[in-house]
């Protein structure tokens, strides 16, 4: 953030407090006077939407925890007690379970916006890495939260995912034993998952503070990727950004409400309304939709350890993005080739998600038998996920570094306000 604080304490108490603990000044500088690029589009509203999601999850979660019982014998029944006997318990639970999905919809848009407009590039590397840390914590929180209702998918999902860590040589078994609190997913596992599921959101909130702090040091990126040069390039956060964020949040809440009230179980799995039974394995274990692409990458690799490494690698590679992208130009608005590869990447992620929901050997094109390559027919979801996984990694490890060196970007404007005020209204 540039410039001096313009905070003017409005009364005697504010002056007194400002000299002792300048919280008023902090809020004023961060959320009122804070200069934002004037050309931010709606893709920039997802930061605000994400803080709304975190708030909703924490508030509903705290109330749900007042009624939930973390024990293998009572967890399933206590969730149904919330659904049936707690006043508006069904609303709380559906807000919380669908809120998780909304959170991931928003975070994926937020991250992809960062990739498209090069928001991770200098000087925003730390901002980006903090965002990746939040995403990692979100995945851990969501995974453990899904275990808590102790339905069939909760239990067997936990079994499959925790077993993956056992693939690591030497330490694998110790890690799984520690996670389980024993030698199988059972009572201690549920109890520690509940405890951690309550802890992690507050860790997320802590890293969010760091994320916003880092943001306010370097300032926001913008659709042109050009840093603001003068006052003409920016507008104060309040009222300009707040009202735009507020409008976007309101639209997002409409989508959220449609899920809560009209299709609350559409994103869940019917098997999770069956009480967990360790002796009965569901025919087809699938994670929640937001993990499906990573599940597809895991299953694409025929070796267990390599599959686990590929899955974790697919997340780890995102942290390295600031150093993998060699382009001097931030925004893909001026990088037509990068734009093409980016949209292919988007499609590939959706295909991976689709593959994650299918049985590996199911045919992609029904009824067509082609040639058997290695272990499966070429016309199978396992091969589709292999090709997609290949592109996923190639996009980060080959396309990103090489494209920056060889592509010819379009000319970029001198300042933010020149294309804006010049009437060049692109997206």
């Amino acid at each position, binding site marked *: 953030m540039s410039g001096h604080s313009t905070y003017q304490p409005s009364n005697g108490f504010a002056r007194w407090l400002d000299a002792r603990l300048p919280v008023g000044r902090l809020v004023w500088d961060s959320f009122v006077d804070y200069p934002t690029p*004037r*050309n*931010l589009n709606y893709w920039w509203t997802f930061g605000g939407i994400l803080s709304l999601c975190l708030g909703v999850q924490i508030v509903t979660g705290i109330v749900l925890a007042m009624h939930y019982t973390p024990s293998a014998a009572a967890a399933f*029944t206590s969730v*149904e007690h919330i*659904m*049936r006997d707690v006043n508006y318990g*069904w*609303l709380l639970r*559906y807000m919380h379970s669908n809120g998780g999905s909304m959170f991931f919809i928003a975070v994926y848009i937020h991250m992809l916006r960062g990739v498209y407009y090069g928001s991770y590039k200098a000087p925003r590397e730390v901002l980006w890495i903090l965002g990746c840390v939040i995403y990692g914590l979100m995945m851990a929180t969501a995974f453990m939260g899904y275990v808590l209702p102790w339905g069939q998918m909760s239990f*067997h999902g936990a*079994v*499959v995912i925790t*077993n*993956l860590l*056992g693939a690591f040589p030497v330490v694998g078994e110790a890690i799984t034993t520690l996670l389980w609190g024993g*030698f*199988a997913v059972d009572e201690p596992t549920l109890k520690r998952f509940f405890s951690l599921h309550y802890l992690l959101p507050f860790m997320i909130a802590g890293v969010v503070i760091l994320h916003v702090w880092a943001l306010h040091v370097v300032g926001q990126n913008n659709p042109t990727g050009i840093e603001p040069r003068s006052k003409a390039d920016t*507008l104060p956060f309040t*009222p*300009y950004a707040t*009202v*735009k964020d*507020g*409008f976007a949040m*309101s*639209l997002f*809440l*409409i989508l959220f*409400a*449609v899920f*809560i*009230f*009209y299709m*609350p*179980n559409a994103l869940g799995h*019917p*098997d999770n*309304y*069956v*009480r967990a039974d*360790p002796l009965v*394995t569901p025919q087809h*274990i699938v994670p929640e939709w937001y993990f499906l692409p990573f599940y597809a990458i*895991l*299953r694409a*690799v*025929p*070796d*267990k350890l390599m*599959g686990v490494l590929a899955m974790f690698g697919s997340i780890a590679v995102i942290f390295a993005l600031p150093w993998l992208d060699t382009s001097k130009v931030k925004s893909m608005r001026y990088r037509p080739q990068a734009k093409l590869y980016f949209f292919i990447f988007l499609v590939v992620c959706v295909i991976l998600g689709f593959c994650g929901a299918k*049985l*590996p*050997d199911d045919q992609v094109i029904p009824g067509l038998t082609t040639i058997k390559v290695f*272990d*499966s027919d070429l016309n*199978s979801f*396992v091969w589709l996920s292999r090709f997609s996984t290949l592109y996923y990694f190639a996009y980060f490890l080959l396309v990103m570094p090489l494209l920056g060196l060889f592509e010819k970007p379009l000319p970029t404007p001198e300042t933010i306000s020149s294309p*804006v*005020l010049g009437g060049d209204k692109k997206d």
Partner: protein
Amino acid sequence: MLRKVTLLAAALFLVGGPALASSKAHAPREVAFSFEGPFGHFDAAQLQRGYKVYREVCSACHSMDLLAFRNLGDKGGPFFDPKYPNANDNPVVKALAAEAQINDIDGETGDAMKRPGIPADRFPAPFANAAAAKAGNNGIVPPDLSLIAKARAGGPEYVASLLQGYVAAPAGLTVPAGLNYNAWFPGDVSAGWTGDHGHVPPGGFIAMAQPLTAGQVSFDDGTKSTLRQQAEDVAAFLMWAAEPKMEERKQMGFSVLIFLILFSGLTYASYRRVWRNESH
């Protein structure tokens, strides 16, 4: 052992082992239930008929642990009466509860005893424990029905289709002893199929014998007791049992959406006003 089994299952997933050659069951039949759609309501008469089917047929083998008699008189439930906002006072609910014999303990002597049910009691289970349930049902515990309409893909339409799905096994299909062929039950019948392997019949083998036949339950409201009628009525009842707050949810959703749309309109107007002099 369990760990080994799950590891093996995970490994099978990873190497994409032998295909689960599953012949698909029929897609559930479309039923125009009254509770579908954004303004759907449960039809109390249908729920009452469904409850009767459950009581006279299903409850002989299936428990419904999550339901109490008082739920029958809750708002949106089969026997709701606006005169009795507290379902525990509802005489119909009291009478239905009193029909059941509930296990209890004599407060004086501590001996096990039976007493007539009260609205606060849960639906009694047909078997004392899982072992007894297994022993009476070919080694398989009949699933609890409290959530069945949400716990199966296809929901209440699947339940209604399954109950009508006991069609004669096609020629060439050997049905294993103790099992029954059902064209709507997801499974794999290829083991008993002697015909063309490209044309394995749909459906699966289910342990439950055909529970409903035409005319089996006589309805008090004079509705003709066809198989389809009974199947759809009990499916509607089970949907209510699985999601008793559905009506309340959809009603609240309507108000919430109206509010949010108006609020979005207002926020958009303020956004336009705030930004009116700024190019962007």
